């Protein structure tokens, strides 16, 4: 059974390429362009893992994470923050609000994929 992964990213090229990469890696990929859309997709597909950008229109990454973590049934689903806002402050805030991992853009593909697998395996939580 394929693992379901939700990718939240407002930059079209990035989203497109990420989807392609992850599908090739054997994931079932669901995408969203902002937090609000991500919440909706989340309820629809119930992913196994979430990769989200921080700076997005309508609902930013932090708000999205907080909402997820407030919902009892969903809060155990791991989240990886994948952001170009690579400040230590953002990293701290992300982990504080419940993200499993903070990854800086750009990030080598190998590292990205390895991180996703680790989080899913529970070696990172």
């Amino acid at each position: 059974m394929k693992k379901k992964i939700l990718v939240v990213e407002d930059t079209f090229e990035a989203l497109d390429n990420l989807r392609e990469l992850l599908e090739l890696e054997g994931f079932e990929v669901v995408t969203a362009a902002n937090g609000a859309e991500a919440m909706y997709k989340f309820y629809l597909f119930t992913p196994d893992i979430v990769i989200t950008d921080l700076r997005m229109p309508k609902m930013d990454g932090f708000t999205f994470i907080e909402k997820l973590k407030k919902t009892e049934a969903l809060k155990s689903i791991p989240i990886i923050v994948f952001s170009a806002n690579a400040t230590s402050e953002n990293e701290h805030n992300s982990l504080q609000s419940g993200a499993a991992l903070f990854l800086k853009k750009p990030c080598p593909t190998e590292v990205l994929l390895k991180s996703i697998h680790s989080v899913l395996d529970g070696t990172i939580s």
Partner: protein
Amino acid sequence: MLEDNSDDAAFILKTINRAHLNIETKVVSNRQDFVAVLDAYSPEIMLSDHQLPQFTSSEALQIARAKFPFIPFILVTGAVSEEFAASIIRAGADDYLLKSNLKRLPTAIKQAIERKRTEESLQKSQESKELAELELKNAHERLLFHLENTPLGNIEWDNEFLIKTWSKRSEEIFGWSESEVIDQQRNGFSIVYEGDMRMTVRVAQQLLSGDIERNNIQNRNYTKDGRVIWCDWFNSVMKDKDGKVITIMSLVQDITARKSFEEILREYHDRYQLLSKATNDAIWDWDIKLDFVVWTHGIQTIFGYRGREITPNKDWWNEKIHKADQGRVIRGMSEAFTAKVSNWTSDYQFQCSDGTYKHVLDRGYIIYDNDQPVRMIGSMQDITKQKEFVEEIEKLSLVASKTSNSVVITDADDHIEWVNEGFVSMTGYTLQEVRGLNPGHFLQGLETDRGTVKRIQEKLQKQESFTEEIVNYSKDDRKYWVRLDISPVFDDKGQLKHYIAIQTDISPQKAFENQITNIARDLSSLIENANVPIFGIDRNGDINEWNLIAAELLEYEKSDVIKKEWMQLFDPSIYKKVEDILEKVFTGKSTRNYELPLVSKNGKHLIMLVSISPRMDSNKDIYGAICVGQDITELFRYRQGLEKMVKERTRDLNEALQKEKELVEMKSKFVSIASHEFRTPLSTISLVAGLLKKHHGKISATEFDTKLETIEKQVLNMTYLLDDILTIGKADAGKILTNYSSISIEDFFNQTAREIEQNDGTHKIKVKLSCTIKEFTSDEKLLRNILINLLTNAVKFSSLIKTVYLTVSNSSDFLQFTVEDKGIGIAQEDMANIFTAFHRGGNVGTIQGTGLGLSIAKKAVDLLNGEITVQSKVGKGTVFTIMLPLLLV
């Protein structure tokens, strides 16, 4: 009832009761019981049987009579002889009745009781008559005794004034014997003094007429040997039954001795009053036994005490004696009492009503009775004046001999006759050395003021008293200052006899005076010549000191301002402050460093730094103030300028600092955002590259090319971004230099529009030129920046209606161009930030961009001194309008 037969007794009782005599009875039957019942019972009547056991009625009668002589005793018996009946009646029984005939008993009882009562009262009246007679006799004897022994003469006159009685005492008083006066017409002797005759006759007539019954008069009478004596007469009339006067009884007393004593006393009293009025002394009369003191008027005139203020006893007087004298005065008085002397004298201080004391000499005369002082009369004399005079004399003589002042007595020609010790110690010359010399000749010296000497000589000639101060020299040539008090002394005829000169060494005072004068002179000179302005003011705030610098600064001469109000020198706006300062100074506080604005005579405004101190005299009374100023006008202005400058600089600095801070913040933010903007395409490139590397086998050749194009596109994006960032960085750093040149309007706007059309390939740009000029001067590079950014945006955000309008026009001053699209528009909330670097509208969606285009356009417009404005509506489109000044080159 004495009855041994009970039947008889009952019968007799029955008889009595039947008669309603209301008699209580007791029945006894023997002697013993009879005696007992008499003692206890006190009967009103006794009834007795004759024959009783060992007892008879005769015996009973005897016993009864001894005890009660007036209680009736009735014999109630059986048959007795007539003889016996008569004998017992004689023996004192009141009646007798036979038991056989008791009918008469009640009557007999009544009669017997009545009779006995009469007897009793008769007996009693007889006794009292005898007593009265005895008393009368005694009284008569006593009266006679009195009459014979009284000091009063007793004379009885009949109604024709013939003498009927002439007692022995009368003889003693008047001299005439009884035989010479009894029944004698008064031709032979004249008893009434002519001066009192009328009064005597009037009184006698009153008595004879019966108008009055008694009187008492005092009048003068003659004696047989012709002396006149004072007599006190007590006369009373005796009248018969018809009220007619029978005799006049007179009691007479010789009161001559008493009368004359009274007269002496009255005379003495009059004299005493007269004396006390005549004298200024306070006369007092102290009744020692009653402790009552009477004061004459002197107590008020001398000491001021009015009636109610005086408590008329010794204690009051005692209290008013000065405490220092009290003990001595009282002691002296008790010593006088003990020694039984008549005179007491003491001098002491006596307190007046107003609390002050007067010296008094008090002299008292003590009257003794049986060696006890009973009365004391004295006078208090005010000797204050004498006392003061004596003290004055004493002081003067003390001064003359003991004073350290030198005293010189000269004759009328100014030759020394006598000097005192003070002179010797002051000058060093002895009396022997200087006698006969003129004092001026050897006492005066080099520094003696000639003017003073001349004045002295003139005054000596005029024979006046005078005082002068002069420098003298002692024998050892010591210089000293003296005050000379010289008085001429004249004899009875007004002839000049002496001069008395008193010399007081006033060198210390003089030295002090000199010192003071010097200090004052120095001070005055200091004030006058000080190089700061100094003003003095009096308590009214009027100027009384004004030094040269003050005159120079304020342009008023001293004469202009002296006695003028100090306040007038100030700017009216600070009158209140100056008043406050002065008020403070006049309470004795110095005030320092007030900056006060003053106005000079010519209206020049000065700022003076003023310190004001109170000026006090030797009693520490404040009589004015001295103000020391400093002209700080220049300083004040300089300081004002400086303060202003500092304020401005501080403001500039703060502004610059703020700007710098904002810039730093902005830069930091810029860098942070810029890095994000770079990371995003880099991430895409990295992903695509990773994807190609890992999965190139699964990717078709076409897809592979697309992937490579994506990478190229991201690199291009990054290049644009980098260019834009560099442009902004340059602009922010002020490193863009404008390079003006003439630009053809038509060529420039058309060519640029075509360029964008070609790059995009989808949109049509309609250019409309309506300019009055063909060329204008500007920086072409900047202008391009503006136009390209605006046109690119217009194309980018209008994907549905693919036409963009560019219009260019001009006025005399401006070149104006607008870029209009029918695209997505800009939301109201984004309007404020459209020119902010990296800001992108909320509705841009997936449309690519750096967020720097408008920011760059704005900076370029600013560099060309133009204006950029925007009008937009979401979903309708946007119009940017740029106005650039036309430069005349």
